[in-house]
């Protein structure tokens, strides 16, 4: 058994026998691993008796779940209504340009991933983005680039 499998099993086992545990088990895996590795679904079936097809269906239904790895810094750009009318699309374009992302959402060095989210609930500070657990509000294009500069600098 490789390290990955044993880590996944450790995460899955506490949910064994619980009802309604599909979403919590997926959340536990994603919180700890950063995404849902493909083998998670077969292991969930094996340990919890939830068909892999069903767990996968749930995972792809909800916006929170990812089935691909993300970069070290996850940038969530808010495109809720308030952020949208205050220029979220320009902020997003500036971030993607800054990171040289053409079609992909993750930089080649796996340092940054960009994700658009519906609302972070900080509408009065729009436009808003989150990097990791930190929320930044009242963004301008310049301020956004300065924030990214600071994260880039930390990587050198």
């Amino acid at each position, binding site marked *: 058994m490789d390290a990955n499998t044993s880590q996944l099993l450790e995460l899955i086992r506490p949910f064994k026998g619980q*009802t*309604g*545990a*599909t*979403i*919590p088990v*997926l*959340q536990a895996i994603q919180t700890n691993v950063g995404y849902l590795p493909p083998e998670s679904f077969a292991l969930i079936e094996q340990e919890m008796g*939830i068909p892999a097809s069903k767990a996968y*269906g*749930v995972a792809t*239904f*909800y*916006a*929170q*779940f990812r089935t691909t790895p993300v970069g070290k810094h996850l940038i969530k750009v808010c*495109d*809720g*209504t*308030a952020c*949208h*009318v*205050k*220029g979220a699309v*320009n902020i997003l*374009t*500036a971030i993607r*340009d800054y990171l040289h992302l053409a079609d992909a959402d993750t930089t080649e060095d796996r340092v940054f991933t960009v994700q658009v*989210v*519906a*609302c*972070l*609930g*900080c*509408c*009065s*500070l*729009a436009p*808003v983005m989150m990097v990791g*657990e930190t*929320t*930044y*509000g*009242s963004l*301008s*294009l*310049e301020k956004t680039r300065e924030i990214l500069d600071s994260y880039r600098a930390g990587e050198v």
Partner: protein
Amino acid sequence: MDKTTILVGYASCGIAAGAREVRALLEAKVAENGAAAVVKQTGCLGVCYDEPIVEVHDAKGRWVYRKVNERKAERIFAEHVLGGRPVEGFLFHELSASGREPSHYVLKRQERIALANSGVIDPECIDDYLAKDGYQALRKVLTTMTRDEALQVVIDSGLRGRGGAGFPTGQKWSFCKKTPGTEKYLVCNADEGDPGAFMDRNLLEGDPHAVLEGMAIAAYVIGASHGYVYARAEYPLAIRRLRIAIDQMRQRGFLGEKILGTDFAFDIKLKEGAGAFVCGEETALFASIEGERGMPRIRPPFPAEAGLWGKPTNNNNVETYANVPWIIRHGAAAYRAFGTEKSAGTKVFSLAGKIERGGLVEVPMGIPLRDVIFDIGGGIPKKKAFKAVQMGGPSGGCLPASLLDTPVDYESITATGAIMGSGGMVVMDEHTCMVEVARFFLGFTQRESCGKCTFCRLGTLRMLEVLDRICEGEGRQGDIEELQELASQIKGASLCGLGQTAPNPVLTTLKYFREEYEAHIRDKRCPAGVCKPLITFHIKADDCSGCGACKKACPSDCITGAKGEPHEIALDDCIKCGSCRDVCPTGAVYTR
């Protein structure tokens, strides 16, 4: 001498504005200096536009500081906390010393029931809540009232569901109460999905116990022994504070067996949502709690008969529950004293978008829209013209200036074609394109459609395609009619609220801003200057002072001009981001 209390506004909005650094600095200073002061956290006062907020409570009164950063915090600590002299220049004068007197422009029109404790108490401290008569309402119903008496108070109060639909709360409870069965469930919908609304986040971050106490009272009335709070995963701080509050309730005997020494038993579990707008629909929410994809079920049977796990279930929104303890403590008549006959009480609104004072307000229902946006919200920044207010999110609509005198109550708002919704108000100015806003909402509902009903799944996509085309400058004659046709089919053939209301943003913008659609389709022109394929940016030489602000802001370096001379935009390199227009102090940048 009494200890000085330093309160730091520590909700998500405050933290995003820099409250974490300010709090850390103040805590360090207090420890370093051995000051006779204590630093406490509190929720959001609602004046989000002036966050971070720091209050100092000393022997002389209550002093509120606005827009505090580390530099200001250092001075506040040195001069006020240590020196006893408030720092005049940083004060939020209207809120200070005299307390929350209704003299202040933001607060004078407000009545705080649901928000009474938000920004006042430490939400992670149950003793703070108890000191504000917390759990007195639960004690009152459990020890002095029958289930029917408690229900009657809620019915008489006229409280209606604050999640959007406005169904009478007492009536809803009575359905579930009447259903026979010993196993019943109580659910709190804290999955605030409207992108542009944050009332529930603030309530949960500022006063979670009020919501939980309301749930316990509802559980007693309907006879439920199990409760669930279904909270949005995007709100980590609200979840953290709920978890703490539930644990505290259990420790103090407000949850579990024999609550307050009576035979009433009730427990609450916290479920984290995983991001699906459709889970605002209660049957979809139940499916999600059960671990399924959040897809709505056909009704009947209604949740009061067969809801979560197939058992009788009552579901209300966060704000609805938060009103209940106040109503029980003060009585139905006191609640009815606010609001209108059919829409009793107060409603919390979040103000955002192109508005001077974005934040959270609680007003009596029936107050004109204009008063909320202009008197309390301060109107539109930079002297721009008001264009529309969006109410009810993706299920609601955009109301124009001519409807600003509409009273804010369920019936009046519904009559306009929008809906009251959960209370999000997003204000739009002359630089907001209503066609593009309609496309934004359709894009949202199209992505969030669960896929169960064909008309919702595909109809929203067809509508989105038409709107995309119009915004790209490829609109055709007949597009408006096609949108209307699709809208009526989607409304008629969808099972749940998501599909039934998804066309509303398009229908209301067509109703009130039809000429803007026509300008896009017929003249290939975006009057608001938003839809990029239809516009070019220019600088009016006569109005340009040559200050260079636009040149500095331009991300593609396509603006040229000497200092003091009129500037020019090289159209070939312009990416049409509008940064120049945003920063121009003289309004010289325009689109055509």
